[in-house]
């Protein structure tokens, strides 16, 4: 769906190259995550892909067509949820959506009541956005991105500023969209979100992709192949995962007391990131 080859980008009037030979592909129906610290080039990559930044070097193909060959009809096929809320504060949420919806083919526009329900804003549909909290504005960002039923979605920090319940709602809906065949490109420095929803992730640092793979594979590859057993009497021990059911020491140990918990010792995505890139994610 999206093929990026040797993408290099330098902002006008700057000498610093912010994207350096990026190569990645995003399949149709895939959630692809770009993970990296602030200033790594995540948002810039998205801006190039949604044609806000031009004059890039390298090749980008979207839905089988070079990005530069797409005209304004490209914007009917994509939806963008920005990192920060951006709405007319003096208008109500519904007025905001109605205004921007008027620029798309009307047959593609989804029912507004349904959209507001998805993100739990149905009670506030006629409220002016200036009265919204940051989290509510972010949820409005989200439904504005999906209101015209685009094939490709760009979400920049989709759960930033949201409480855990609403963050969960958004994450579930993103997965729901993927199941409908939408292609989704997420940028985030929130490892939990990436781990929960992304099919594949790329680690990006200083404008370079250091690694691309499935989160589960990465966690497994970079973790210890052991299980840690903790008993209620505070005794703990680690055992190799291989042939665990026939491991006599393991079987003896779990008879020594009530089991409090048994955990595999796979790495977290954040640990993998730090190990691979040598960079902290949360800044």
């Amino acid at each position, binding site marked *: 769906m999206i093929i990026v080859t040797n993408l290099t980008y330098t902002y006008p009037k700057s000498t610093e190259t912010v994207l350096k030979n990026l190569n990645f592909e995003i399949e149709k129906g895939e959630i692809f995550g770009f993970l990296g610290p602030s200033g790594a080039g995540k948002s810039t990559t998205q801006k190039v892909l949604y044609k806000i930044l031009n004059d890039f070097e390298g090749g980008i193909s979207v839905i089988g067509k070079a990005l530069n060959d797409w005209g304004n009809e490209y914007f009917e096929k994509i939806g*963008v949820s920005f990192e920060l809320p951006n709405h*007319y504060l003096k208008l109500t949420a519904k007025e905001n959506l109605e205004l921007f919806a008027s620029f798309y083919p009307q047959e593609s526009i989804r029912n507004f009541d349904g959209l507001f329900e998805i993100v739990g804003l149905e009670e506030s549909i006629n409220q002016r956005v200036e009265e919204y909290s940051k989290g509510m504005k972010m949820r409005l960002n989200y439904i504005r991105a999906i209101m015209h039923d685009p094939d490709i979605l760009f979400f920049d920090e989709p759960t930033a500023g949201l409480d855990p319940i609403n963050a969960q709602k958004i994450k579930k809906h993103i997965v729901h969209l993927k199941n409908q065949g939408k292609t989704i490109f997420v940028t985030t420095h929130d490892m939990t979100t990436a781990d929960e929803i992304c099919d594949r992730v790329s680690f990006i640092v200083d404008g370079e992709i250091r690694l691309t793979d499935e989160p589960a594979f990465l966690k497994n590859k970079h973790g210890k192949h052991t299980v840690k057993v903790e008993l209620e009497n505070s005794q703990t021990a680690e055992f190799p995962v291989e042939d665990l059911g026939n491991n006599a020491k393991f079987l003896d140990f779990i008879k020594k007391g009530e089991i409090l918990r048994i955990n595999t010792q796979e790495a977290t995505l954040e640990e993998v990131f730090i190990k691979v890139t040598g960079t902290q994610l949360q800044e």
Partner: protein
Amino acid sequence: MEKLIKVAINDFRLVFRDNSLKFFFIFPLLNLFVVHYGVPFAVENFPLLEDFKMVIVMSITTQGSLIFGFIYSMVLIDEKDTNVAKVYGILPISKFWFVIFRLITPFLYSVLASILILLVEPFYNIPLVENILYSVQTGLVAPMMVLFVAIMAKNKIEGMSWQKLFNIPVTMPLLAFLIPVYLSYLFAIFPTYWAYQGFNKIILGENFLIFLFVSFVYSILVIALFARRFTKLHFQ
């Protein structure tokens, strides 16, 4: 067209829901009273002003454009401030034409304000066609100002300063009527010089069309230039 009407209605809502902006709509109305009652009263009581009444009327015709230009530039600056401009950057529309169409509302308001001023001023009996042709020229000041201020200003406070600065090239060509003719040509670099000269010719009953034509072409070129620059800056 439906989209543009929607944007025009939206702009109107934004202005009228902003207490600091809707207040400015009073001034074009006040100008009608000033030109109808205030200026004749002043001319009658201060005969010295008799020689300047044409300059005063012309000045008032552009005041409406400056006010509407200011109001709509504030809308665009606010749009940039709140990052709403970025949303327009990803809509399936031509950005350049969107900007041009967006300027139609302040242009029309300004033309209307100028037409009304010339209808209620008591000194000259300007035919309606000439009135409209001249008012179109003064109306073009509004889009020029909207774009200029929105390009230059980073926020509303800066916008107010740039708006004041923009008043200078708009009103300065009025000085052309107060100085020796050979010096007055210096003001020809400003589009409003041509409009004011056209107005003078209308009053004198001379051929005004060439001046209004130059004014129109010059203003359109300046607007197109500003619009190109604005389009590059606004949506990123």
